[in-house]
């Protein structure tokens, strides 16, 4: 029922659940599923879909069958995540510092300096504790019996953590007896960990009680619910660009009692829109002058500016070498084998095998701008071939993975295998690095589909990490 394609046996971590499901009434899952939807709607746990005029707020479909990860498996995963994210921070420190990894030939210089996410403004800057990506979401897939591989690193403003927390709340409400039968590690400590992490990353002047805020582009942003959710759980103000202003390189927020100094900004705005004086002048969601305050060391931005250079899909392909260079050991978590289409030999191979491969735009995200060879028509493949030949630098290609599946409630009310991925959240600060035991499991609800993005019909599941 669960596991790698082809295996018949129930995974050990799923055995209790499997027994429980056998004795549960036939329509129980469907009833709970309806209950969950009703509740999410009442709470307004929604996301906005750009260009969807009909309903600009939608629920992400929630699947009531949990995704379960065993203890030993998680322990290994956690080690791998810490190693990877530590290496990413070291890599960013190096790129914006001495650039030893470029001199050592680990990554090609042009890949960094022509990268649209490389920020020359950050060259020579050192954020507190040399932490660049305070919050990192690493997308993983299981491709075989043992362990996971990394599909993508998200080092800029990864989203989805509110679903990790809300899904757990929902499951505890819907299936209290299931929780009694499992020993599941709690995820609700995430916001405490995040708060501690942000505090530890504050500039020195801020003292023991820094003023932390969450900066959102506003209610029309697709992840706005998450921004407000996090501010609420952290107990800090949710601000928009217009609530902040900079005076003498110090950031203030406008309050009913006058201006108040801000020390740490957990910003959910991309670099491009952060400061119209430095980046895009047409940004109306940013704060003029905030980069000057940042450069003066008067405020911490979390994540730092310029981290996008580490999660770009082209740099991704060098990650095993980057990890070895900075950690001195082999990467515990592997990459998906990837062809860099910028290399002529690789391009040739990719063009030969195009119908079998997944091809992604280097700067793309959200499952857009990609080709899934086996699921595409001849015409689509030929169209893509032209794009690829015209701009090989813009693409990477990967084999179509035999992604693992997890049991999922289908529209007929039966359990069916559906492809899943996993995004755990890794928090880094000068005080250390921590991983919340769980993550966001995204599931492709359409039979056979490999695309799990919520903007394209994906759903989510609660993710259980067992403690025994």
């Amino acid at each position, binding site marked *: 029922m669960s596991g790698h394609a082809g295996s018949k046996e129930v995974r050990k971590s799923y055995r209790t659940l499997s027994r429980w499901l056998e004795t549960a009434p036939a329509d129980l899952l469907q009833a709970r599923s309806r209950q969950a939807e009703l509740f999410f*709607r009442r709470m307004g746990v929604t996301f906005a879909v750009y260009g969807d005029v009909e309903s600009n707020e939608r629920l992400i479909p929630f699947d009531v069958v949990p995704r379960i990860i065993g203890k030993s498996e998680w322990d290994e995963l956690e080690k791998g995540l810490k190693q990877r994210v530590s290496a990413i921070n070291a890599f960013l420190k190096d790129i914006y510092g001495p650039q030893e990894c470029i001199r050592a030939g680990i990554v090609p210089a042009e890949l960094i300096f022509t990268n649209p996410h490389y920020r020359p403004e950050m060259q020579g800057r050192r954020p507190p504790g040399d932490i660049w990506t305070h919050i990192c979401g690493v997308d993983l897939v299981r491709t075989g019996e043992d362990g996971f591989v990394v599909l993508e690193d998200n080092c800029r403003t990864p989203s989805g953590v509110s679903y990790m927390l809300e899904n757990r709340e929902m499951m505890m409400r819907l299936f209290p007896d299931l929780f009694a039968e499992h020993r599941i590690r709690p995820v609700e400590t995430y916001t405490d960990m995040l708060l501690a992490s942000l505090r530890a990353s504050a500039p020195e002047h801020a003292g023991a009680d820094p003023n932390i805020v969450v900066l959102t582009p506003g209610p029309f942003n697709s992840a706005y619910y998450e921004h407000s959710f996090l501010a609420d759980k952290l107990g800090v103000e949710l601000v928009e660009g217009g609530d902040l202003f900079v005076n003498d390189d110090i950031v203030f927020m406008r309050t009913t009692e006058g201006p108040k100094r801000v020390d740490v900004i957990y910003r959910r705005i991309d670099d491009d829109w952060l400061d119209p004086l430095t980046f895009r002048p047409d940004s109306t969601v940013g704060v003029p002058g905030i980069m000057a305050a940042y450069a003066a060391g008067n405020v911490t931005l979390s994540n730092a500016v310029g981290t996008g250079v580490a999660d770009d899909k082209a740099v991704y392909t060098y990650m095993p070498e980057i990890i070895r260079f900075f950690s001195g050991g082999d990467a515990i978590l592997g990459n998906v084998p990837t062809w860099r289409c910028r290399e002529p030999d690789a391009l040739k191979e990719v063009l030969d095998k195009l119908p079998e491969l997944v091809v992604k735009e280097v700067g793309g995200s959200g499952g857009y701008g990609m080709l899934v060879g086996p699921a595409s028509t001849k015409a689509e493949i030929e169209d893509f071939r032209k794009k690829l030949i015209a701009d090989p630098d813009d693409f990477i290609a990967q084999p179509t993975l035999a992604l693992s599946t997890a049991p999922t409630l289908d529209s007929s009310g039966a359990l069916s295998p559906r492809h899943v991925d996993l995004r755990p959240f890794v928090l880094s600060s000068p005080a250390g690095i921590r991983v919340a035991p769980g993550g966001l499991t995204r599931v492709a609800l359409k039979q056979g589909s490999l695309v799990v993005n919520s903007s394209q019909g994906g759903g989510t599941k609660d993710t259980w990490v067992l403690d025994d």
Partner: protein
Amino acid sequence: MLSRTAESLYWTGRYMERADFLARILEAALRLAALPARDGAAATAWASAIASAGVSRQFAASARTPSEKSVREYLAFAPDNPSSIRACITAARTNARSVRTALTIELWEAINGAWNGLADHGEPTKRDDFVRFLEWVKNVSLAVEGASSRTMLRNDAYWFLRLGMAIERADNTARLLDVKYHLLLPAGERVGGQLDYFQWTTLLREVSALTAYRWVYRESVRPWLVADLMVLNRQMPRSLASCQGMIVSYLDRLATDYGRRGPAQRIASARLTRFNETNIEEIFQSGLHEYILSFLSENNALAAAVHDQYLV
């Protein structure tokens, strides 16, 4: 607190209150239009609803003429009316959503539930369904007010929300009282006659004050006593004097919490003093309608002072 947060709370309060008021105006119009009267009484009732809602100009500009159908649609649902019930609930919810973190779960669920309910109700065309819709709107405002008063901390978030409600309610009570001014008695009906009496009774009923009236005055319904109840009576929670009292007390709490008084506090207490010094005879002598007009403009001036002092 962020100025923007205060502003959103304040407008959440105002919009929810206004939605309730519009429902009450429409109920009043339905009743008044159903009174036995000569030709034209029904049309007058619907025109008066538009006038009381303060949207006569916009209504006329939209090329509509007052009828039950057009007024119901305009005040409750019309997409081109930024002050329809639907627009108010949507605006209240948009404001609330942008300050989700300043609200309790109960309050957010009440407001978000109202917004979800709009879709469930659709645009009822049958009169029965429409009356049920209006009932629902009034219940929504009870739920919102109840959730806020039962679950929110007594801090600035609460004072700004309530301040918005109180300022809007003062405005609305004044306008509701003015309905009577716009309700011309058709030829052949006399002042103090049966239709006149029914009109005043309906107004009282719409602010849930008919029983209160009998308890307070122990008399049949008389215009100056209705005005006394709705303008000066401090026991009546919707009276202008009560609203003014609430406004003063919320502003005072803000001043205490923040340790600073400003123009808004000064304007509000000066007005409350004037309420204490006037009586209903004086008001009638200078004209109720004129009194209401000047009250409305003072209320706007106070709202502007609140805005300048706290919300920017």
